[in-house]
């Protein structure tokens, strides 16, 4: 049962022949917890041990928690790989967003300047994530108020909160905008 898949955000993505483990979901979660691997749905993504030149974490799709059918003991189908790749990339973006968001919040906690807040490198990198950052920002905004409004404007080109004078008003306007469009 060998169908490990190394996924990275660069050209290092390649098929990998790691031996898979037979694990059930609870065991898989323990395994993932113990090893630091990432588990998503029914797939354990094992941390790759080789060096890659990438800022993003690299995981190897290691095994399924339910026995795959006979065909899938070979290489996974392209569709399955796409699903895994999609999940991996989404996870990578979430981690990247969390890290950048925490960095930005810490760095701007004592500042009143929106110029500094909006121009902070971490904030600019979040904008650089592109449209995939929109639901991540909106979910963050759901949790707590903060000045995410410029990033949302930059990413969407929309101005649902233009003219609002309070953080709460702008937050409500953007959350309403996001819900209407199915982002949250």
């Amino acid at each position, binding site marked *: 049962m060998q169908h490990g898949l190394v996924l990275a955000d660069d050209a290092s993505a390649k098929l990998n022949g790691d031996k898979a483990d037979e694990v059930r979901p609870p065991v898989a979660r323990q395994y993932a917890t113990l090893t630091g691997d990432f588990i998503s749905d029914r797939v354990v993504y094992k941390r790759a041990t080789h060096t890659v030149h990438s800022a993003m974490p690299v995981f190897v799709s290691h095994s399924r928690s339910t026995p795959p059918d006979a065909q899938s003991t070979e290489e996974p189908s392209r569709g399955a790989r796409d699903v895994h790749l999609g999940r991996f990339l989404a996870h990578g973006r979430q981690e990247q967003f969390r890290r950048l968001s925490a960095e930005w919040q810490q760095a701007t906690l004592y500042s*009143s300047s929106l110029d*500094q807040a909006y121009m902070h490198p971490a904030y600019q990198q979040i904008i650089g994530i592109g449209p995939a950052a929109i639901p991540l920002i909106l979910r963050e905004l759901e949790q707590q108020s903060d*000045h995410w409004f410029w990033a949302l404007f930059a990413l969407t080109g929309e*101005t649902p909160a233009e003219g609002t*004078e*309070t953080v709460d008003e702008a937050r409500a306007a953007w959350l309403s905008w996001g819900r209407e469009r199915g982002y949250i």
Partner: protein
Amino acid sequence: MRAIFPGFGGEGDEVRSPLDRRYNCIAFAAGDESRWWWPGPEEPGGAYWPEGLPRETTLDNFRNAFRLLGYEECDSFELEDGYEKVAIYASASGVPTHAARQLSSGRWASKLGKFVDVHHARLEGVMGGEGLADYGSPVLAMRRPKSDASP
């Protein structure tokens, strides 16, 4: 706090509120704890700047914002009978960074960005930080006649 603001923590210095991301130092100095005052870009919303003033971060613009509240420039940050004062801080390059308002005791009240409200005995109490906590120094004193409601 001392790690961020080395000048803070002397006698009379105290934290007065929990963290609140809804208002900032300029709003707090202006007596408004419901809005974030900053002349940033208008499109994204979430910030207030007095109508008619430009959306630019200059000392002159901040001076004019407090003039609309009845303040006039003065020469001293010292306590004066019959007046309440605000102190505008700016970076070494002259960009406004912070504002504090004087209490009737002569101490100062500041909101530290998104963080907490503090009282500090000296204007230097919120100087000397690093990075984005670097408020520069007080460069502009403004005063207006005290009203009955003044703290």
